[in-house]
């Protein structure tokens, strides 16, 4: 009997209704945080800085990413019972070939536990999966309940990624690690100063006025002046925009990535060098992904690897 089957049977036994259980990976969400503060630390104003010719990053560089999959397996009353699987992996590149160096996987249920009766809770406890509190509040709302579950899932995925990253950085004390997204979440991880964040989404804007315009209209092969942003828990990161592909006749954000590193000695000095490494990752193109202009191929490969490994999870 599959885990999914166990969950659904437990629901049915405890008087819940079993849903279709369609697998999903994300829920639509509005731009949560459109603006944030930052201070320019390279000159007074943001300008375009040519970074030079692309250079392949050091041998043994790692790339970490994660995936999440979930399914609403049923309801107790109107309370959704969500089963989720999150996974992360670090693929290490040696002689151009990517191989798994660290991996972390977790499968769990996420439910607003406070709304469950003892019998319902007991039924779910019988399923051999950890139960994560979704903290959806006492009053049911079909969309918010699901949103709350997704928040938990994303947190667990972040945790998986952090876990895999930590293991890689510990095992390879000299290796660099490219992270899909920001790096402030890794602040507590030993060796995190060797992490390079490559952010594809630009929902939060840190610059304004002419600085913003200079950053969003960078020519290809240039980076913006660096600035420092503050992340969760007050962790600071040095960041800059980098134009990977020309944007003329395209969207402003076409080919625009934001690179960041934890505030550390040398982080700013190596901005050009790190930018050249990232620039070199334009090829090969992750052409099976619509975000190919910003998604580095090794990151895409990590996703493919994780999905292949998950197989037909459901």
């Amino acid at each position, binding site marked *: 009997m599959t885990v999914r089957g166990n969950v659904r049977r437990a629901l049915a036994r405890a008087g819940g209704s079993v849903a279709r259980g369609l697998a999903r990976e994300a829920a639509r969400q509005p731009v949560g945080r459109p603006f944030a503060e930052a201070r320019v630390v390279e000159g007074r104003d943001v300008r375009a800085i040519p970074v030079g010719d692309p250079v392949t990053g050091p041998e043994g560089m790692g790339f970490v990413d994660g995936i999440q999959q979930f399914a609403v397996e049923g309801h107790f009353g109107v309370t959704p019972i969500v089963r989720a699987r999150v996974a992360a992996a670090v693929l290490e590149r040696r002689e151009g070939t990517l191989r798994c160096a660290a991996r972390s996987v977790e499968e769990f249920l996420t439910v607003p536990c406070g709304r469950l009766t003892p019998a319902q809770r007991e039924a779910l406890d019988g399923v051999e999966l950890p139960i994560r509190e979704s903290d959806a509040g006492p009053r049911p709302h079909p969309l918010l309940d699901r949103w709350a579950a997704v928040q938990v899932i994303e947190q667990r995925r972040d945790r998986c990624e952090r876990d895999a990253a930590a293991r890689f950085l510990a095992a390879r004390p000299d290796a660099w690690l490219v992270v899909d997204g920001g790096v402030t979440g890794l602040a507590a991880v030993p060796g995190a100063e060797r992490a390079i964040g490559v952010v594809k989404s630009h929902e939060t804007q840190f610059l304004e006025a002419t600085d913003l315009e200079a950053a969003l209209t960078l020519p290809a092969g240039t980076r913006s002046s660096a600035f420092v942003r503050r992340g969760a828990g007050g962790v600071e990161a040095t960041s800059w925009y980098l134009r990977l592909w020309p944007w003329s006749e395209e969207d402003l954000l076409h080919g625009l990535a934001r690179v960041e590193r934890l505030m550390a000695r040398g982080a700013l000095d190596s901005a050009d060098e790190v930018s050249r490494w990232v620039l070199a990752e334009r*090829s090969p193109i992750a052409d099976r992904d619509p975000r190919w202009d910003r998604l580095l191929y090794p990151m895409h490969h990590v996703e493919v690897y994780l999905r292949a490994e998950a197989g037909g999870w459901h």
Partner: protein
Amino acid sequence: MALTRDSVPVIGRVVATEALPASPHQFHFWTPTATPIGIGAIVRVDGEDRTVFGVVLDARAYSDLVTPLHEVIGAEGDPGAPTAPTRRAEIRLWTAAVLRQEPEEPLQPVPLARVRLATPADVTLALRMDAYAQGEPRGAIPVGLYAAGGTRAPVWLDPDFLLGPESAHLNINGVSGLATKTSAVLFLLSAVFQHFPRAKGRIAAVCFNVKGPDLGFLDRPAALTPQDLEMYAALDVAPEPFDQVRFYAPYKADGVNLNTLRTHPELAGSVEPLVWGLREVLDYSEVLLNRDDIDAKADAFLDFLADRVVGKPFVDEWGGRHAVESFGDLERLFRAIFDGLEAAGGRDMWRTHHVATIRKVRNRLMNISTRCKGLVTDDADGNDLPFGAFEDRTVYVVDVAGVDQLGQDLVFTRVVSKLREHLERRDLGVEHVVAFVDELNKYAPADGPETYVRKMLLDLSERGRYLGVVLFGAQQFRSQVHRRVVGNAGTTVYGRMDMDELATPGYQILSPATKIKLATLPKGELMVRHPHFTQPVFVRFPRPASLQGRQGVEQFPPAADVAFDDAVVRQLAALDRRVPAARVKDLIAGRREDDVRRALLATRRARPHDVVAFFAARLGPAVRRQTIGDPAHGADVAPLRTVEDPYAP
């Protein structure tokens, strides 16, 4: 043999999708990009409850690139752009055909399991050779060495399916010079002679040498490389030339120099002349007459000659007595008939045969001794292959390379027909004969008029195995050989092939990759199809241990043709080195060349203890030449009356 999993490393895994499913006869598997396997490799799949053996037929590699355009974009249009830091994910996807499943029943799709390279024991099982290549008596014939991914294993043919009676015949195919067809056949013949069980009977081979010196030095050792010797050892074949070879060749038109390239003085006497008289030729006159010549009337007259005239006393209507044994005798009979009809007032019928028919047959028959001069003699006596006294494990090489097409057809037809006759009567001396014929497309073409040779080959292909005559045929283009001839070959061997030939319908069953491999096969590698193998298998074989033609003529350059008397001396000296040249030359001085040839042939055939005495006896007493009016010889014959020439100046 137990089909246990062993310590052989896993090289791949079977994959199956809706579009590329695994079936009972075919499956797909992936491997890392660095893999020892290739087209033709034999692999083993170990499922939970069954083991499957397969042979790799095709391979594909592709990456996750959606369109080549994205590669251009990634390199920004510059093919010389630095190599991308990450190699794209790519796959090596192999297609294999099932050779065997264990258990055989119920036949099921190939399990989605791990794939290993076949071990030598696996190769034996996969090719179903365990049925005949293990246990005693083995008798299996090694054809070559399977070699793939570091595995080397002998591949054997089942003697019952190569030499009969279950199936028979071998056909070998490939472009000239690169396919090593002759070498392959010679190696296989060695293997047959060494491995064919004596309990199954005696065996000999008749090889027709149709071009150059190809088969002219089978008794001479060749230089072999250590790799060759290693292969011989692995195949359990002794690397030795054939120890019993008999060479036959017709004479050249002069009737004394042999029409072969094996004339080096060191090899003198090793070639027997092949000479046929009227009796030997008449039964195969159909070969010599073209299609238009053959009609019911000519046929009837030929039958009349064969039944009533040749070899029997015959009295014509005009009282003439004839004993027709040779072309010369036949010509005298024809002359008598024409003269008799003329004298009878120009009658146009003789014994129900029209004079025009008689003239046509006479022209064609008498022309034979001209067209095939050297092979066909005007005399009654000939020198033939030792039908009835064939020896076990002996190769009989019939060298007709220097003979024109007509002569080749005649030799080929008559020799094979005689083999059949004797095998049918069980008095050939051996129970099995391999007849090796190169350039089969010439003798049994797919198109063109029906010829006697083709009919005979078809018959041999279809019924020869019951008699013990096995055809080893070779040709450049299989598609140009009659379908029934190649179709009846139980074993088919392919050397390097021509791409145009591979595009013909006969090769549709081969995968594109197999075709490419065939088109680029190195020398010494072959693809073999055999009734026990469910798929063709690639093998390597060593160079023959016999000296090959080209090296043979370099090592033993042919002697130049010599004058008539020297040629006679040379031939007699081949029988006995002590023969005094001056004495022989004295004996033949002033003699008719035909008389000398006849005596020489008789001497060669008899191989007497005292060669010169025998030769002299067969030559008979000399008739002294006498010149009229020569005072030395007296003047007992009156000179002719001298007539004054009125136009003399």
